[in-house]
């Protein structure tokens, strides 16, 4: 309560292409963060594009309002980058909801970048959260980095999920590091509870849960499995997830006759992840690049020993005594996994509940929300740059691209002027702000994300309006 008195309450709009029913790190981040902000009294709406027949406005149990706007996704759940056509509708939403801060998520999200750009044109404050790491050498990175540069040069503040991610973002978008805050992801410790009774006695189970793609280091995994299974007869693997590299693991399983020891579960619902995790003793993560890696803290929260590659932001996530780190090659990974298995055999591990308790202290979404609130506070105090300053900033982006960016910004300003003429701000009806008679506790909100409630078809029955 003390904290709340210190902070003003804001009207925040989260924008990203990625949200429920899509599943992933960004999606759960937006959901958890928004829920905790709502809990702290802010008004939060989420804007995303439509998912199939999921269009229009929906409410979640804790009073979160979600706009599924009618923009069609065209590649990897992102909308087509058209810049201007999204302006009228987004402006309408921003005015209708009386938004002060627009918070975009994920560098891949076209809608997020466009919404932030329009918000800046309208003079609103913007915050951007970057969830991913990028290289600098290949053509796609160069293009994406230029887009990010365009988006962030005008953004009031940026949030990164790890220190490595921050260094990467600063380099990619060429912004001052003091305008970038580091706020990690967290884990819902009420869901990811340990349950050692689910473990198979007499066996040591290594769990791998990830999309089976090259970037997740499945090639490394394919090299590790045969060595470990031949050395330790009591070790078995459970692999959750699907993807193009699945065939590689199946080949290994075939070649070394490991059908009874390597269980392939295929793609998993987020709600099932915990149930799979608790069956294991050790969690193995072979990612080749990772900004934060929620998967390892989810596993640690379930009481598993975590063996991971030493890439990206992973060394920052857990203290060395809770994490077996190895260089990303099969030999080093195998050695480290063997260490973990030996520790398990001789019972030198930390007690699962003790581990869970530690993770709970390290990471909580409430803490993330409080730290994000500080960012909002900074953003609200920052002065609004005038058009000339904005254009100058764009111009500094590059000799050719700078001019292009300026042109885009000017066009957007003209578009805003036209829109204000056709649909004046006063003509847009203000939305009623919902007041929850009963604050839904953080402990309960996780159920919705887990999909346990029938939230797909109208959650109005779950909300008690005052």
């Amino acid at each position, binding site marked *: 309560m003390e904290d709340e008195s210190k902070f003003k309450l804001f009207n925040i709009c989260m924008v990203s292409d990625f949200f429920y029913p899509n599943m992933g790190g960004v999606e759960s981040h937006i959901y958890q963060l928004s829920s905790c902000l709502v809990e702290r009294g802010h008004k939060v709406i989420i804007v995303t594009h439509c998912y199939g027949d999921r269009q229009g406005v929906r409410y979640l149990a804790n009073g979160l309002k979600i706009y599924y706007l009618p923009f069609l996704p065209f590649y990897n759940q992102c909308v087509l980058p058209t810049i201007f056509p999204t302006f009228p509708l987004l402006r309408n939403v921003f005015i209708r909801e009386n938004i002060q801060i627009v918070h975009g998520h994920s560098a891949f999200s076209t809608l997020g970048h466009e919404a932030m750009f329009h918000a800046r044109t309208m003079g609103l404050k913007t915050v951007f959260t970057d969830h991913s*790491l*990028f*290289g*600098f*050498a290949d053509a796609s990175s160069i293009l994406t980095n230029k887009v990010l540069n365009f988006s962030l040069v005008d953004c009031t*503040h940026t*949030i990164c999920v*790890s*220190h*490595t*991610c921050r*260094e*990467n973002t*600063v*380099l990619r978008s060429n912004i001052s*590091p*003091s*305008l*970038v*805050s*580091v*706020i*990690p992801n967290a884990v819902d410790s009420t869901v990811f509870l340990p349950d050692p009774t689910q473990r198979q006695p007499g066996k040591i189970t290594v769990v791998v849960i990830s999309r089976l793609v090259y*970037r997740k*280091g499945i*090639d*490394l995994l394919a090299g590790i499995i045969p060595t470990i299974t031949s050395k330790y007869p009591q070790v078995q693997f459970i692999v959750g997830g699907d993807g193009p590299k699945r065939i590689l693991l199946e080949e290994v399983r075939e070649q070394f006759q490991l059908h009874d020891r390597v269980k392939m579960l295929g793609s998993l619902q987020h709600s099932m992840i915990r149930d799979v995790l608790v069956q294991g003793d050790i969690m193995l993560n072979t990612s*080749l*690049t990772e*900004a*934060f890696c929620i998967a390892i803290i989810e596993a640690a929260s379930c009481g598993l020993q975590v063996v991971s*590659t030493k*890439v*990206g*932001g992973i060394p*920052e*996530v*857990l*203290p060395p005594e809770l994490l077996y780190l190895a*260089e*990303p*090659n099969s*030999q*080093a990974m195998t050695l480290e996994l063997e260490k973990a298995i030996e520790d398990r055999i001789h019972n030198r591990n930390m007690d699962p509940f003790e581990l869970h308790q530690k993770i709970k202290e*390290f*990471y909580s979404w409430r803490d993330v929300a409080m*730290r994000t609130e*500080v*960012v909002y506070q*900074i953003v609200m105090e920052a002065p609004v740059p005038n058009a000339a300053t904005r254009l100058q900033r764009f111009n500094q982006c590059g000799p050719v691209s700078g001019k292009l960016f300026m042109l885009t910004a000017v066009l957007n300003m003209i578009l805003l002027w036209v829109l204000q003429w056709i649909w004046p701000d006063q003509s847009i009806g203000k939305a009623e702000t919902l007041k929850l008679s009963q604050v839904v506790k953080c402990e309960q909100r996780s159920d919705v994300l887990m999909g346990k409630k029938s939230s797909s078809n109208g959650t109005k029955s779950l909300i008690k309006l005052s």
Partner: protein
Amino acid sequence: MRVKLAQASAWQKVLYKKQKYPDNYVDQSFLDELRKNHGVQTYSYKTLVNASTVITQQLSSVAIFIAMHLYMKDHSVSAQTLWLIMSTLSVIGYIANFILNNSAGQRLSFTLFVKHLKTSLLFQGCSAALSPVLVSLTETISTDTIYTMTTSMLLANLLLFNYDTSHDAVPGAMSFSAAIFSSVCLASRLHTPWHAFTTVTSAFELFALWPSLRKNIKEKYPMIHQCVTVVIVLLCMACLGSKTLVGAVIYCALVLLITFACTALFHFLQSLKNNISGPWDEAVIHSSSVLMAEHSTS
């Protein structure tokens, strides 16, 4: 006060600790792990000039081939004489190759020699037998078309040639085929089977046998390779110069461009290289563990 705070709890690059610093605190260590041009090899100008001789030599092969055609075309040298010269040079080249291999410890056995002799005779026989066909094969095609095709094929030969000496896997089959195609085209412009025979066999000698000998010399005696290059360039200029001054000038300009200008440009551009890497880069799965060890210590 600030010093005291720093001593009490220095900032750490970790996420699991609650630190007494704001979230947008920029530490001294920011971007410490950034590596610029890590693992990038820079070449000295001398190395580059030396390396460029491979291109010059292939260009010379093309120049000699064209010069031979010009000599035969205006009948200043007969096809028989040229064939004799090329065959003698090939025999000398074969002996040189034999000596090179011998000094490297590879013994040339009698059976291998017989095998080579058989191949060579078989090939010469086939070419001789086919030359009446070759001479009339493209005779009906207009001379302009033939010259355009020859030019483009010789350019293709230069572009597709396998200049890399370290990899034996790709022998530049495309490049070689292009050269033979151009020789077949040119063969029809000289009207007698002897001319066609000489053109095709010398194309084989210039574009198949000579490059492999060059490669051998470059690997074992780089110094001799440089000398051979100078000799070849002078020879080419003399041959071309006596027939076409424009050709000789173009050849000379190209050699200078490749050897000095292009290498200088490459050398200059190296200093502009700005390749950044850091912990955010996607790890690369190496097959050899040695490379990984290097990677981890970096």
